[in-house]
């Protein structure tokens, strides 16, 4: 995370990843397919392919949207707990999550997929519907680059709202630390599943959250609630890890019940590898549905 600009960072990640991709027999979940249709009066002249018209003297409409296989919506957790890390303690979770989302968005944009972004903490903060547009990526990266205002996480409330916002089916990439009560999570995730979305969850954790390797007694402050407790890490570690493992087990159970592939990553892992792992994961459910060529254009 030495590169400050998120777009550069995403590009670096994707290019590194792409260079390895050529040797891979798989090409991911999206295939590029471009189609032209003869212009008929009433079509939006904006979509005329002027180059083809200049070459052939015939009017063709570029039907790019209909050709797009994937609508990918990133739901990125912008809560305060994601701010953990940084400085001496390695990469911030939020930086990692944003870079991940940006990289994936970049990659998908390269594949001409529609990409959207929603950020949330207790509530939905930003919502950019998935589109394949030239400036879409720029918009997304810009939004991602804004520092999160910060608040407590309420996954359930945010997800419930987002479920109503994300209309068309597509892929939902939920990036969060999932460090909040899981009571309502299953129900909320089921809303996405019910809507036919292909949901993937990426749990971003900091290595210290995994092993809790603090040494000296200190006042531990909850980054979200501001609550303080004095703690001897040596004494608390065991109980922490028990509870942490139980929480993750419960989370895994929810994902598995909803057929959601869950990725648990720590900020110490190289992002390229995580990206590759993410892309290699077979969809648990076929969500990519070829839409008829006369789908929208016919409408």
């Amino acid at each position, binding site marked *: 995370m030495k590169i400050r600009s998120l777009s550069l960072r995403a590009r670096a990640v994707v290019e590194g990843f792409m260079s390895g991709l050529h040797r891979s027999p798989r090409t991911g979940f999206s295939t590029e397919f471009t189609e032209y249709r003869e212009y008929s009066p009433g079509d939006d002249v904006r979509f005329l392919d002027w180059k083809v018209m200049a070459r052939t003297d015939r009017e063709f409409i570029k039907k790019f949207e209909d050709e797009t296989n994937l609508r990918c919506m990133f739901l990125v957790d912008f809560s305060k707990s994601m701010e*953990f890390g940084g400085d001496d303690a390695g990469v911030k979770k939020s930086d990692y999550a944003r870079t991940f989302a940006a990289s994936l968005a970049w990659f998908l944009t390269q594949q001409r997929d529609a990409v959207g972004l929603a950020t949330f903490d207790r509530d939905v903060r930003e919502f950019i519907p998935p589109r394949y547009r030239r400036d879409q990526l720029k918009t997304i990266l810009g939004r991602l680059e804004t520092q999160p205002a910060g608040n407590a996480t309420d996954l359930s409330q945010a997800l419930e709202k987002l479920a109503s916002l994300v209309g068309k089916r597509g892929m939902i990439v939920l990036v969060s630390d999932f460090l909040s009560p899981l009571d309502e999570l299953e129900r909320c995730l089921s809303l996405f599943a019910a809507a036919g979305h292909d949901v993937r969850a990426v749990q971003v954790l900091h290595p210290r959250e995994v092993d809790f390797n603090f040494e*000296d007694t*200190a006042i*531990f402050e909850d980054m979200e609630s501001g609550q303080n407790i004095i703690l*001897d890490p040596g004494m608390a570690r065991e109980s922490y890890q028990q509870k942490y493992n139980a929480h993750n087990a419960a989370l895994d159970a929810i994902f598995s019940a909803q057929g959601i592939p869950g990725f648990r990553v720590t900020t110490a892992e190289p992002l390229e590898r995580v990206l590759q792992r993410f892309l290699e994961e077979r969809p648990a459910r076929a969500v990519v549905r070829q839409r008829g060529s006369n789908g929208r254009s016919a409408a």
Partner: protein
Amino acid sequence: MSFLTPLYLLGALGLAIPIILHLLHDRPKNKQAFSSLMFLDKTKPPVDRKRRPTHLLLLLLRCLALLLLAFVFARPFVTVDDPADAARRDRQWVTVLLDRSASMQRGDLWQQAKAKVQTALGQLGPGDRFTLIAYDDSTASLAEVKSWLGNASEAEVNTQLERLAKPGFGGSNLGQALVFVGEAIQEAEPEADEQPLARREIIVISDLQKGSHLDAVQGYEWPTGIKVTLEQIGEDDQGNAGIEQVASRMPWATAGAAPSFRISNSANGISDELEFLAHTTAGETLSQKVHVPPGRSRIVELPGEWVGKSVERLAIRGDAAEFDNQFHFAQNRQQTVRIVYIGEDKPNDAEGSLFYLASAFQQSSTLDFQVEAISGKSTDPLPEADLFVIGDAVNDSLAQALGQAIEGGATALMVVQSSSQAANLGQWLGADGVVVRDIASSDYALLEDLKLDHKILKVFGDARFSDFTNLHFWKHRELQNLPDEGIDVLARFDSGAPAWLAARRGAGRLLMMASGWTPADSQLALSTKFIPLLYSILKPVLKRKTQSRQFVVGREVDVTRFNNGQGGGVTVMPPGDGAAAIPVDTVFTPAAPGLYTAKGSGWSETFSVNLTAAESRTEPIVMDQFKRFGLPMSSPAASPLAVEAAKKKETHRREYWQWALAAVLLFVTLETVLAAKGSRTAEPVMR
């Protein structure tokens, strides 16, 4: 252990402060932000294992420092047996110095003093050594017990004490008495079978009046192991007034001056209005009011109308203490000094010697100079004189009479003015062929080689007066063939010829001058050297004739002075009717004030004896003065004379707060060091 101010012990409650601070201090200072506390439970108050021992030690030190501070403020002390008490059981040497000076006559001071002696006796134990010494101007041992035997010894001492019925009239020389005792103790050698002395103590029982002389103590190096306890009796709260004569001792004081007296009033005097009284021999009492403010003194002249009335006693009235109010007065009589000039000079001839000689001597209240001139050719018998001045040649009979007078003790001054005097000179000096030769010189001569250590020229010994270069001699003579021995050359002319000579002949003296004081001879008569020179020649006579007749109790009176230095067969009649006459050879020491009469064969002289003026200064000496003089004083608390207190078990308080304070400082220092060390080793939370 007890506490002087036990309320301060409440300060120990302050111990709670470091404990609370330490509890607070255990809260970690560093804050760790963490994503979520959902997996964390509140653990028990955490303990920082690494810093725990340091913290405990710090806490302990801080608590101890506070505890000790409260302890210090509470002023703890323990009562222990007085170590002096224990020492008392050892053998001791107690010397009591009892003041018997005149000032002890006041009130019941003497009774108090005796009671104090009894108290001192009461603290003696078997085997102790005891010395009782009474002092005034002199120091006298009254009793000495080498090994105390209880009642027997006490009776012995009391017998001696009873003999001293009342104090005397002497002054008070405390310094001399202290040094006397100090030396006696130092020089006392223990006997072979004697138990060593654990303590040596001098107890001074006195009114410690300001008039006491302490000078002797000032330079005295006290032997170690001696303690001096001052037992002051009587408090001078009413003051005292005193009288003393301030007689002018200058022989050239103007004639007719009345005697003067200093009347002093002490600072705490009860009145500033005193009465000055004079009792005459006729029984008459004259009185005069004198205003002397307290703390001041005033010189009062005897009023003119009193002088002629033969006053025998003066007194003051109006102060509290009576003992020093009388002043016995013997008026000095004017003495006649006879000077005989032998020569042919006229008394009014300013060119002659007699004129200047007669003018040199002035009348005074004590001296009457009578200058008589006789011719050298006179055949009358030689009159008596204190000084013969021979200015010319004398005939044989006169020369012979003069020679005899000189041999008999007279003083003769021969001014050699002509060669005709050579025969007389040879006769008196017992030498043949003495020649007087006039020195013819156009220039003046000066004196040189002056023998300023000779008693006649000693008066010019000071460098301010020893310059004789302004004294010019126009004419002088040379005395030749003088005998080699028996003649002192006091001065020479610059030519080397003797100018002034002195020869002792028998009991008398013959002085010679090779140049006179007439204007034709020299400038001597008009110079500043002339009068001092003549008085210096007359000095033995003047000294004898100007003796005061005022004496002080306790000081020796040389009775020979009343009889031209001849003693033997003198009786002194003390004052008071019916007092037995005291035969005195040369020296008499009066023990009481009054008018005494010394009688010899054919003469009688009255002299007065009074108290020493210092006795009138009865206000007490400032105690600091004793310390300044380095007196090894024992502390007043350990005074052995508090009999009642001594009978009870004397306790001694020992306080320990200084040590506790030192401990506080030590703990605070340690605490600082440890705390500084602790803060250096503290590590950051995140690594």
